[in-house]
């Protein structure tokens, strides 16, 4: 169906996205662009609007695409009617010489991503399935957009994009007003609005066309090449894609503004788009995650000393200073709610003297920390939300497989295709199709599951000493923030006096967990075994309902068990811990021992039950969160 889209030239601001797109239309060798940014910043609008000005078609790749439609599959209509094997080509075929747009590209399933990567690097698509063998060219400009809130992008895919831009809302009230005005005018009368911008669209289209013609004539000097290489090297980029993207982009820039040879300005300008997602140290993340401070500087490059050295300096120094800033920012970001602390004190009075509630301590912005870590970790293949093949009937249907078991999840489309070549010779009982048991294909589904993090928190009297509980609350809250982003499920168990309490059953509501956490009180003995035991029961029950869960127990304690079934409370705890390990449940122990004389019981427990142990003071390094992720990854 034909769609009426908001004109490209009617979008106000977002110059960086516009530039990156236009350069790609001029020079497809740049290798596409990834637009990352907050919701509602005209990301998709601009890309959809590009059809009009680029002279190319925008082919959209929907998230729920199946393999057969991506690369192609046997045309069963033809097979039935004429008995011929013919390929019904997928959308990669139609994307050839055009623009391939993937919205929310970070949510694309692994199978599809793999096929997409292969096609984009081979510049052709190879089909070997259902008795068909074919290869067709598919050279396309890959454009992706994503909201980093949802999850990151795998590095192989990230590297494939020539350019990277960050989208952000406009800050000026006046511009915002005009944006509203235009959008409302568009919705009021679509056709009229589009007509109004027709002339401007034509103008831009012809500018692009002229630049395309000029492109082959642009000269690239050796100096320009070495400058690009230098920049890429300084940014610590892997491979050579970085400098290639810089040169190709610089050529497009020069073609657009009419220069005949690539100059220093165009190289530095290009580097700002081509390098951010390829840089490999901490400053990368700053560039990628926090360029709010940067774009002003970037979009208006100061004329006098816009040298490569300068750029390099901006990258690295800005990286460092911003980094510590972020850190400081996040530390002050404690949800200090004066009202709730009042509640605490009043609640305190009502409890018996041995019990107390501590406010939530320092909270760390683990999200960013984690992402920083992830940036490096990703290369080892970890750190994104766990994607599993699932045999439950939920999840996204990504491809089909030959079935040898009784299974009701039949992939009818694949079954029809499998049966299609034989239709000529089969007895069909008056129907058009006959299907044998050997034709049956089943669906292979993929599903993103979050982790199931069970917090088992020691709430005994010893935890009340020296603000310990407050630090623990802070730590858990940090983990909860992370869980919120990843849509992990959480549960909270506390143990004190003579039993464990399930404070919060399995939930995705991180809000609720945070609320429960606020009112957690301490006091009494330490029945460590009971905490571990109830975590095991909880997980087992949950796994019955959802097989795909990836459970992790986060045990927060000093390990000093003082209450048990037998005369050896610590021994009881070890026994329970072993049962946990026997069920293949990963455990992480956060050791909160801070006393002068260290008994190292938590460490001992960890050794006995093969768990990882972290000190509460380690939290500052953000290790615990990555520990949770590596723990689930290892399973």
């Amino acid at each position, binding site marked *: 169906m034909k769609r009426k889209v908001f004109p490209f030239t009617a979008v106000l601001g977002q110059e960086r996205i516009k530039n990156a797109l236009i350069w790609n239309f001029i020079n497809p060798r740049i290798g596409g662009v990834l637009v990352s940014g907050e919701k509602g910043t005209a990301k998709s609008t601009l890309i959809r609007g590009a059809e009009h000005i680029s002279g190319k078609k925008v082919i959209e790749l*929907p998230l*729920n695409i*199946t393999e057969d439609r991506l690369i192609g599959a046997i045309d069963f*209509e033809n097979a039935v009617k004429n008995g011929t094997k013919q390929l019904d080509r997928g959308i990669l075929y139609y994307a050839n010489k055009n623009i391939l747009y993937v919205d929310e590209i970070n949510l694309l399933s692994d199978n599809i991503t793999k096929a997409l990567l292969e096609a984009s690097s081979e510049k052709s698509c190879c089909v070997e399935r259902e008795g068909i063998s074919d290869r067709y060219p598919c050279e396309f400009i890959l454009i992706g957009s994503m909201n980093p809130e949802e999850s990151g992008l795998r590095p192989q895919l990230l590297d494939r994009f020539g350019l990277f831009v960050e989208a952000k809302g406009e800050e000026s009230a006046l511009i*915002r*007003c005009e944006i509203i005005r235009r959008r409302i005018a568009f919705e009021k009368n679509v056709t009229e609005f589009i007509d109004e911008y027709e002339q401007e669209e034509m103008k831009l289209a012809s500018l692009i066309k002229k630049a395309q013609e000029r492109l082959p004539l642009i000269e690239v000097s050796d100096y320009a090449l070495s400058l690009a290489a230098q920049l890429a090297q300084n940014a610590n980029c892997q491979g050579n894609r970085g400098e290639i993207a810089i040169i190709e982009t610089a050529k497009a820039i020069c073609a657009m503004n009419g220069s005949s040879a690539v100059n220093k300005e165009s190289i530095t300008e290009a580097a700002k788009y081509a390098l951010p997602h390829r840089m490999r140290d901490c400053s990368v993340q700053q560039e990628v995650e926090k360029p709010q401070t940067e774009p002003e500087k970037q979009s208006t490059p100061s004329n006098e000393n816009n040298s490569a050295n300068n750029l390099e300096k901006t990258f690295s120094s800005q990286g460092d200073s911003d980094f510590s800033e972020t850190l400081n920012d996040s530390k002050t*970001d404690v949800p200090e709610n004066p009202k709730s602390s009042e509640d605490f004190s009043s609640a305190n009075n009502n409890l018996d003297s041995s019990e107390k509630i501590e406010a939530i301590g320092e909270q760390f912005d683990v999200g960013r920390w984690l992402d920083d870590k992830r940036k490096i970790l990703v290369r080892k293949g970890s750190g994104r939300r766990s994607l599993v093949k699932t045999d439950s009937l939920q999840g996204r249907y990504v491809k089909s497989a030959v079935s040898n078991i009784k299974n009701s999840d039949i992939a009818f489309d694949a079954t029809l295709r499998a049966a299609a070549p034989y239709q000529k010779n089969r007895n069909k009982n008056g129907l*058009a199709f006959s299907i044998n048991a050997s034709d049956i294909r089943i669906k292979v589904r993929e599903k993103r599951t979050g982790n199931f993090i069970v917090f088992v928190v020691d709430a005994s009297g010893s935890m009340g000493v020296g603000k310990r509980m407050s630090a623990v609350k802070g730590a858990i809250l940090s983990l909860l923030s992370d869980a919120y*982003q990843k849509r992990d499920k959480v549960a909270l168990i506390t143990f004190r006096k003579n039993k464990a309490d399930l404070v919060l059953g399995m939930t995705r509501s991180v809000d609720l967990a945070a609320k429960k956490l606020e009112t957690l009180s301490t006091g009494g003995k330490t029945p460590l075994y009971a905490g571990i035991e109830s975590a095991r029961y909880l997980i087992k029950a949950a796994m019955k309902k959802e097989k795909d869960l990836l459970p992790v127990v986060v045990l927060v304690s000093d390990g000093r068990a003082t209450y048990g079934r037998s005369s050896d409370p610590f021994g009881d705890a070890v026994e329970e811990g072993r049962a946990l390990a026997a069920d293949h449940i990963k455990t992480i122990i956060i050791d909160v021992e801070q006393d002068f004389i260290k008994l190292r019981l938590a460490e001992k427990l960890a050794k006995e039950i093969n768990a990882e142990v972290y000190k509460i003071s380690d939290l500052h390094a953000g290790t615990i969160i990555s520990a949770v992720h590596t723990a689930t990854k290892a399973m």
Partner: protein
Amino acid sequence: MIKDRITYPFTAIVGQEQMKTALILNVINPLLGGVLIRGEKGTAKSTAVRALADLMPTIQKVKGCKFGCNPYGSEFCPDCEAKIANGQPFEIYESKMKVTDLPVSATEDRVVGTLDIEYAIKHGEKKFECGILAQANRNILYVDEVNLLDDHVVDVLLDSAAMGVNTIEREGISYSHPARFTLVGTMNPEEGDLRPQLLDRFGLVVDVAGENNREQRAEVVRRRLEFEENPEEFAQKYEKKQKELSDKIVEAQNILKSVTYDNKILMMAATLSIALDVDGHRADITMIKTAMTIAAFHGRTQVSEEDLKQAAVLVLPHRMRKNPFDNGVLDAGTIDKILSDNE
């Protein structure tokens, strides 16, 4: 098929004014982007959405079109496009807007549509079998417990809600059709959060709570019992009120196109968005559209400052949530303060 049951009349719902307003605004102006109703169990959330069906205006559709294309619109399904290309005139009929349900257990193929197996086996040809999104075109799509929806179904919803188009490239089918719907969701926040991306797609958000007033509560029970005793009689009692409200909705729709706003209103919207640090521009745009619809509902053609403030309370709360543990609560007082600070 079950015979149409008599639904509890919308106008008989006691209190919950904000929720009722938000729903009515969306009926008047389907471009507002829907409403998310957050609240505890038993606060008439579902009742209100279901009751809405009775108040819906009639719209004109192309006869024989599975997607109910608008004969005077600018976007058409492939079948209607073919008709236009062949110079075939549309047959037009009128029909009431509907509330289409999206059950939480719905599978992806039922939502987006899939290959018609029966047809394929009988005729050896491919045919697209419509899904829920096709039915929802130009209607209200209602998702009860929207926070429990499977992730991959949410992805699909996001796509269509944003573009008004459902693109299918799966199971051997390649098809796209208009899917412009008003998304109405209800959820109990205790059972988990909504993905921020989906949250942002809802134009408006209202939080509902049980009535605190004892008399009001008694009235709620009284009416409910009366309804259950004899639904027909009860519905008759409210017929006049229902008629008045649906007339008012139609009237508002008629004047909506001529509602105007001045620069001051625009500036107020931009100021609020900047001060509350919301993501992107969707909030600003929705705020103005909502204010315009509020003005139309009151029979005015000029947006007042009060309209905008009322709109802000509905549009902003869920968009200013930078920290997951913020409550996401915004009241009229805060809005007044921001506006006076930025005078």
